[in-house]
């Protein structure tokens, strides 16, 4: 038996205490294979050891929630026997190392999470964060990530319908690539991962196993390739063609009743899928690695258990159904092998070449995995009202903001994604939320991803509330009822109390907002240690939200539709410029208090607007977020090709603050005059602060009282110009 050295323990990312705990649980020294299994199962990624304690505070229940966190993806009931299954996940580190493959495999991974539960994926979203545009790596990363997302999603034939992108120096050394997948299933046909019962066959399906993604450090012994002496790369390459076949084959198998449990092989592949299925089913699992389909020769047990080769699934079948399942996978020309069976021992037993290479209690990998209540320090939130030059010409600033990296059109990105395949995309990228119709039905799903990291940096609690509120608003603004969220918590090193404080603050903020808005969390993902040279990223708790639209024929979009529509601003405008886009882009500072979020107002205003759209009274609506009112008006004008005029409507707020402040819980709607009059009365009755601020007009200009006007063509040039011009410059890889 090998003796485990201090060096090996360290290379496996285990602390001294953790190793002691392993010795206790095992009652002996682990083998190298067992050590590897512990190392991946107890990693932050698989065990959530730093966040699990806090995540318990998130609200996860509602009458429409069928499955909350804990399975491969969350499930909600959307009526008529239909279920919506969705999840968001990060692929940050791999995308920094190799942007194309990192992003592509991120998309593939999240799709498997969704279709392993029986859903056909119907829409993809992505939330991206890159370093500052001038950083030498940024272009290459943007180019590769976008191409990778498109390369995988387009081939799968699933529309990529939206997302968000920010550039900020805090991501120079750690970009964020968060991908979200939304799928549809029938409520009585949802597949889970609990491998209940003993003596059932465990089958391996999909691609062959290679030495992909096995962490370099732990592989020092076998790492060199004899022929070239080159170090084996640990990057995984995606194969969307195989994934498409895997999707169709799995759905075909799922139409039978042969499956007891099924789970995709994601991080820590064979190890985590088998351990989790056994754990959830309260059974044991015995694997014989000799039967694992292998792409390379002489693979060790260690390599096979830790490989992260893509496009693979593990399933437990009802006994006797193997032939039937095999026929399906052969038809789709995929590998299929019975590689083990379930037992009643509650142990994970792994055999290879006639030897038992691992034999461990499954609970040691799940329940007994460490949970840390790490010390945290919630530093004081940034406060204050920032100074600014009140004389700067408003419309010049608008053009500059519309042409800035964070605010310009993302067309360069979304045109590389097939957003119309599946013929159900009723609201395309460019609006507040994307809307995809439920196939063969009248209803649709509204989808958005949101977070404003600069608010979260200034105040993790309010910032996280804001992320949830903005997702709620984006869904309401198209006319859908927000139903549930998935989160993706991207942070720095949790072993630093101030970072842990950001995490705790953000979790509390999400919890409070989701509770107040009836918007439960049904899934999520944590990506910690996003740090380079001791510099962490800005806290980035991305929120992916999904809502239900009863009738996609009654949907609002941001585009102005008619001349002489009245512009109504709903919500209170104080002109808060703290942490605003205006302050950063025009004054060059990120300071002051992040805008506070009044959740009661969010709910009230959102419900009001939604009702107007549902009743078919309003078809033009935009929520206000980054850049405030004037940016929203410009986006509405550009989207519709119709101009408008507006003023401060008798308020005492200074024009710059009025037009660029980022107060929350606000929407702009545009309707013909008589409807506007009725709506105004209803707003008054409901006690909702509002103002008529102007109207759309015949000229193709945006005119602001006392500031003059600017041609839409000029704004469009600024808005559409930045991305293509930026990406046109030659860059190194």
């Amino acid at each position, binding site marked *: 038996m090998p003796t485990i050295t201090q060096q090996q323990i360290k290379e496996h990312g285990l602390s001294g205490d953790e190793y002691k705990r392993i010795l206790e649980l095992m009652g002996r020294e682990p083998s190298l294979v067992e050590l590897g299994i512990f190392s991946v199962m107890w990693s932050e990624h698989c065990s959530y050891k730093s966040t699990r304690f806090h995540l318990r505070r998130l609200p996860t229940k509602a009458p429409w929630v069928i499955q909350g966190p804990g399975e491969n993806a969350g499930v909600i009931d959307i009526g008529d026997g239909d279920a919506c299954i969705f999840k968001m996940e990060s692929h940050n580190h791999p995308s920094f190392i190799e942007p194309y493959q990192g992003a592509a495999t991120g998309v593939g991974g999240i799709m498997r999470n969704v279709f392993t539960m029986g859903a056909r994926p119907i829409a993809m979203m992505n939330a991206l964060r890159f370093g500052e545009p001038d950083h030498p790596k940024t272009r290459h990363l943007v180019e590769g990530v976008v191409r990778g997302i498109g390369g995988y999603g387009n*081939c799968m*034939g699933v529309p990529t319908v939206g997302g968000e992108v920010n550039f900020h120096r805090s991501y120079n050394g750690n970009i964020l690539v968060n991908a979200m997948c939304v799928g549809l299933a029938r409520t009585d046909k949802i597949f889970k991962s609990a491998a209940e019962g003993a003596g059932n066959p465990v089958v391996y399906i999909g691609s062959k196993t290679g030495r992909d993604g096995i962490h370099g450090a732990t592989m020092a012994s076998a790492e060199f390739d004899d022929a070239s002496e080159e170090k084996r790369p640990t990057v995984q390459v995606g194969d969307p063609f*195989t994934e498409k076949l895997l999707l169709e084959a799995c759905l075909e198998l799922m139409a039978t009743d042969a499956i007891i449990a099924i789970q995709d092989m994601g991080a820590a592949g064979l190890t985590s899928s088998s351990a989790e299925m056994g754990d959830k089913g309260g059974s044991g699992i015995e694997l014989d690695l000799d039967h694992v389909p292998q792409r390379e020769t002489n693979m060790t047990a260690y390599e096979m258990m830790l490989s992260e080769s893509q496009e693979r699934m593990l399933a437990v079948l009802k006994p006797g159904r193997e032939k039937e399942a095999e026929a399906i996978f052969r038809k789709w020309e995929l590998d299929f092998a019975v590689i083990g069976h379930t037992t009643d021992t509650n142990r994970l037993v792994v055999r290879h070449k006639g030897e038992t290479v691992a034999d461990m209690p499954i609970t040691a990998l799940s329940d007994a995995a460490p949970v840390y209540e790490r010390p945290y320090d919630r530093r004081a939130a940034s406060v204050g009202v920032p100074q600014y030059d009140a004389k700067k010409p408003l419309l010049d600033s608008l053009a500059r903001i519309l042409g800035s990296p964070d605010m310009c059109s993302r067309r360069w990105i979304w*045109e590389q994604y*097939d*957003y*119309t395949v599946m013929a159900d995309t009723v609201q*395309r990228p460019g609006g507040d939320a994307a809307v995809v119709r439920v196939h063969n039905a009248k209803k649709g799903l509204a989808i958005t991803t949101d977070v404003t990291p600069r608010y979260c940096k200034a105040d993790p609690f309010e910032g996280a509330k804001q992320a949830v509120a903005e997702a709620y608003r984006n869904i309401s603004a198209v006319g859908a009822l927000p139903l549930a969220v998935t989160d993706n918590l991207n942070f720095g090193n949790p072993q630093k109390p101030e970072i842990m404080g950001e995490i705790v603050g953000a979790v509390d903020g999400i919890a409070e907002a989701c509770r107040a808005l009836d918007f439960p969390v049904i899934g999520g993902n944590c990506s910690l240690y996003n740090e380079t040279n001791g510099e962490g990223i800005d806290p980035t708790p991305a929120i992916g939200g999904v809502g239900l639209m009863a009738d996609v024929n009654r949907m609002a979009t941001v585009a102005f539709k008619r001349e002489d529509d009245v512009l109504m601003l709903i919500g209170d405008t104080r002109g808060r410029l703290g942490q605003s886009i205006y302050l950063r882009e025009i004054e060059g500072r990120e300071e002051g208090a992040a805008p506070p979020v009044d959740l009661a107002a969010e709910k009230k205003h959102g419900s009001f607007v939604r009702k107007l759209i549902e009743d078919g009274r309003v078809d033009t609506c935009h929520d206000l977020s980054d850049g405030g009112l004037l940016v929203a008006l410009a986006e509405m004008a550009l989207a519709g090709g119709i101009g408008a005029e507006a003023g401060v409507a008798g308020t005492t707020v200074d024009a710059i603050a009025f037009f660029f402040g980022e107060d929350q819980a606000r929407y702009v709607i545009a309707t013909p005059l008589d409807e506007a009059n009725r709506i105004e009365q209803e707003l008054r009755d409901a006690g909702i602060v509002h103002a008529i601020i102007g109207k759309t007009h015949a000229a193709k200009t945006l005119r602001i009282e006392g500031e003059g006007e600017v041609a839409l063509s000029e704004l469009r040039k600024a808005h559409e110009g930045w991305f293509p011009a930026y990406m046109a410059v030659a860059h190194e890889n």
Partner: protein
Amino acid sequence: MKSAVVVFPASNCDRDAAVALQSLTGKKPHMVWHQESHLPEVDLVVLPGGFSYGDYLRCGAMASQSAVMRAVKAHADKGGAVLGICNGFQVLTETHMLPGALMRNADLKFVCRPVALEIEETQSLFTRKYEKGQRVHFPVAHGEGNYFADEETLDRLEGENRVVFRYADGDNPNGSARNIAGILNERRNVMALMPHPERVVDPLLGGTDGVGLFQSLIETLS
């Protein structure tokens, strides 16, 4: 009109094509797996869009070798109608049922957006419901739609009025020679185009400009 949609491994617009055909003809098309060597009795065979074989090696190359393509060829040889959309166009050029080739887009990027097209030729079973010179908008969604053929072939296509769809001036999304978006074979019963008519048959999804193509087929083949 009876129709069939061929399904290759990783076709992904097969459902979209079937939905459009069913909604316009009232009949469910047959879905034919690429390993079939016989086609059902149909008037129209559609080769749908997608990424057959992942677009690996060359788009459409591996699909062109499938058993079903021999049957499709036989169907066309008997005068049966064949419509190729996007990947279907690539398969048809790889099978040499249509001339030329579809290369990487000139700017090397996948492009998804609505494009303006001009109907060049209405003397065909695919376009008789349109007017000559009519402008329509269909979405494109492809990485390799850059139509290439040698000058002689291009001249011949034009001379024989076999260029059916052209990208409107200034709206060529991929660098195609002479703005060609869709062409006919010599016998005029096989037509393919890169843009997606089946994605514009529902006003909710960005227009109904594609209806004319299916109506033309229905009128001629029923």
